[in-house]
């Protein structure tokens, strides 16, 4: 049983007190978040009220659900009614969600206790959480380094043991890359598996919500809770889908392809070494691992331009709604146009402005065919190349991030250098595929050891297969090295030891 399932089982059986669990999580946040800044808002009173509701349900003999009493952290772009929803942007400072997202509704329906809103790159645009208008999150393994992004607050909160389970969103790598850099498990479901209702839109053809957790079993439980059809998001699949928790965890006979493009020279040597060791472990447990030469994903090297043009174009349209009229603060001008210009020009941060400009450019008359439509055509080539590989393989494997966590400020001067963080995750997003990042060892360098993530990628709608393979890999790997810095005195039930 996973540790999230352990907590829920303890609460359901009356052995664990959900109020005490919430207090433990809140105490850990109070003790450590001053250094880490995982959270943009912690509503302790709301968490206590919610935990008391769950306790009352148990005492009344009602089952609170599969996440009974589990403290959860939710990225500040996923609506939870009454809670902040700032997207780490000054343009939504003070904004509170008037309704809950489908995901938040599902979490509450299964007994979860939201404790806080996690930090992120502004509007999920970034790979380091340094684009938050409210200051960066720090990596628990080395607080001089970034946690990755954009779901960096959620990843760091799980890595530091502040919560056992968190939720993020991914458009180009924003769940898996911070999971890799913080040494936790992060899962990006197939596009359309989880409702986007109540997720503040960034790139609507790419955005997916998913869990960050201590291991794949916890991620599978969270996925089973949040996935499913929602009539309010027409892109979610109707009908039922297989349970990820119940899926058979078997590596023997699994056909695993390793595209040469996933492990070329642009990948850090330590990351390559840990990835090769992970592949050997898969082989030792009976997986049929095939290392492919370069050329099976011939257009993958164009994923960065394709991703940044498609996502930025969609963002330029989605973010048009933030004009100082309906939401958030306003920079008032004499005329309406001047109000729009001042509000958007001063309250969006530099990276968001840059992407709105890039997207507006790519969609503008004279450039639409050359940039936006070109990017969509190459996106199809990338998808077709992935689908061809899945006619031969059950899973693809490779590193999640080309490099381990980097120093704060190391990539902020050059936007393109930051974009390269998405090199190995963006192509998977462009193809809408399910993918998980699991810890596969530590990169040793001159400083503190830093986590490395292995990503497993599945065919469309094979989410349960990806999570089951990840859980089987984790069983073969054994308990990973955890970041202990912020775990001293960790309460056993709220994210510490099993």
């Amino acid at each position, binding site marked *: 049983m996973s540790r999230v399932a352990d907590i829920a089982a303890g609460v359901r059986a009356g052995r664990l007190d959900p109020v005490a669990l919430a207090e433990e999580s809140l105490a850990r946040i109070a003790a450590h978040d001053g250094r880490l800044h995982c959270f943009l808002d912690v509503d302790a009173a709301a968490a206590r009220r919610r935990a008391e509701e769950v306790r009352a349900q148990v005492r009344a003999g009602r089952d609170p659900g599969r996440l009974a009493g589990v403290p959860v952290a939710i990225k500040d772009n996923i609506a939870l009614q009454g809670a902040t929803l700032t997207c780490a942007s000054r343009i939504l400072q003070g904004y509170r969600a008037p309704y809950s997202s489908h995901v938040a509704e599902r979490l509450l329906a299964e007994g979860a206790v939201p404790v806080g809103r996690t930090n992120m790159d502004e509007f999920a645009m970034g790979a380091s959480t340094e684009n938050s208008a409210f200051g960066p999150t720090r990596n628990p393994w080395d607080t001089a380094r970034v946690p990755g992004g954009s779901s960096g607050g959620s990843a760091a909160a799980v890595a530091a043991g502040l919560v056992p389970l968190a939720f993020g969103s991914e458009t180009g790598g924003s769940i898996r890359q911070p999971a890799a850099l913080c040494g936790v498990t992060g899962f990006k479901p197939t596009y359309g598996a989880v409702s986007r209702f109540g997720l503040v839109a960034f790139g609507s053809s790419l955005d997916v919500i998913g869990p960050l957790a201590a291991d794949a079993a916890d991620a599978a439980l969270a996925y089973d809770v949040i996935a499913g059809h929602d009539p309010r998001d*027409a892109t979610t699949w109707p009908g039922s889908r297989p349970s990820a928790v119940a899926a058979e965890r078997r590596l023997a006979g699994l056909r695993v392809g390793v595209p040469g493009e996933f492990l070329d020279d642009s990948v850090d040597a330590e990351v390559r070494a840990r990835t090769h060791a992970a592949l050997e472990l898969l082989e030792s447990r009976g997986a049929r691992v095939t290392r492919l030469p370069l050329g099976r994903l011939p257009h993958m090297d164009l994923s960065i331009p394709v991703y940044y043009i498609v996502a930025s174009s969609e963002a330029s349209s989605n973010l048009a709604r933030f004009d100082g009229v309906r939401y958030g603060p306003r920079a008032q001008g*004499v005329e*309406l146009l001047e*109000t729009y210009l001042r509000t958007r020009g001063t309250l969006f941060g530099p990276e968001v402005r840059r992407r709105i*400009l890039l997207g507006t450019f790519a969609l*503008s008359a004279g450039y639409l065919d050359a940039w936006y439509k070109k990017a969509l*055509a190459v996106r199809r*080539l990338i998808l077709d190349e992935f689908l061809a590989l899945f006619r031969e393989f059950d899973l693809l494997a490779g590193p999640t991030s080309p490099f381990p966590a980097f120093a704060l400020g190391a990539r902020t001067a050059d936007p*393109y250098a930051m974009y390269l963080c998405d090199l190995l995750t963006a192509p998977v997003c462009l193809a809408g595929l399910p993918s998980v990042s699991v810890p596969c060892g530590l990169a040793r360098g001159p400083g503190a050891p830093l986590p490395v993530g292995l990503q497993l990628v599945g065919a469309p709608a094979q989410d349960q297969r990806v999570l089951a393979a990840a859980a089987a890999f984790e069983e073969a790997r054994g308990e990973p090295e955890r970041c202990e810095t912020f775990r001293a005195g960790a309460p056993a039930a709220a994210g510490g030891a099993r």
Partner: protein
Amino acid sequence: MPAPDEPAVDAALAANVAHLARLGLSDDERRAAAAQLAGILGHFRALQAVDTAGVAPLVHTLAVPGAPAADSVVPFADARVRLLGLASHAREGFLVVPRILDADFGPEEPAAHADPDPADEESPG
């Protein structure tokens, strides 16, 4: 370098794009934006060399076809109060914006309120 048939990304082009995006930028910000946009597009230019003749643009990757939403009215209790309460400028049950039809009336009085009372749909103004 830009293709021969494509104008350079200069401050004028950046100004036009910024206007389309309703982003107010200073002269310095426009110049910086033009340089950054030119730099990013320079990295992206390899895209132009790909032969995509006959390749249909991919607009979604839905693995399983979605189902259109039912065309029905969904109740949203106290919508006016709850939604107006989120705006920085609201009065008498409406959003307040600067005049666009008759500017002679001068600027709107700012009616900002940081923490509107959801019980009162009329914001102080």
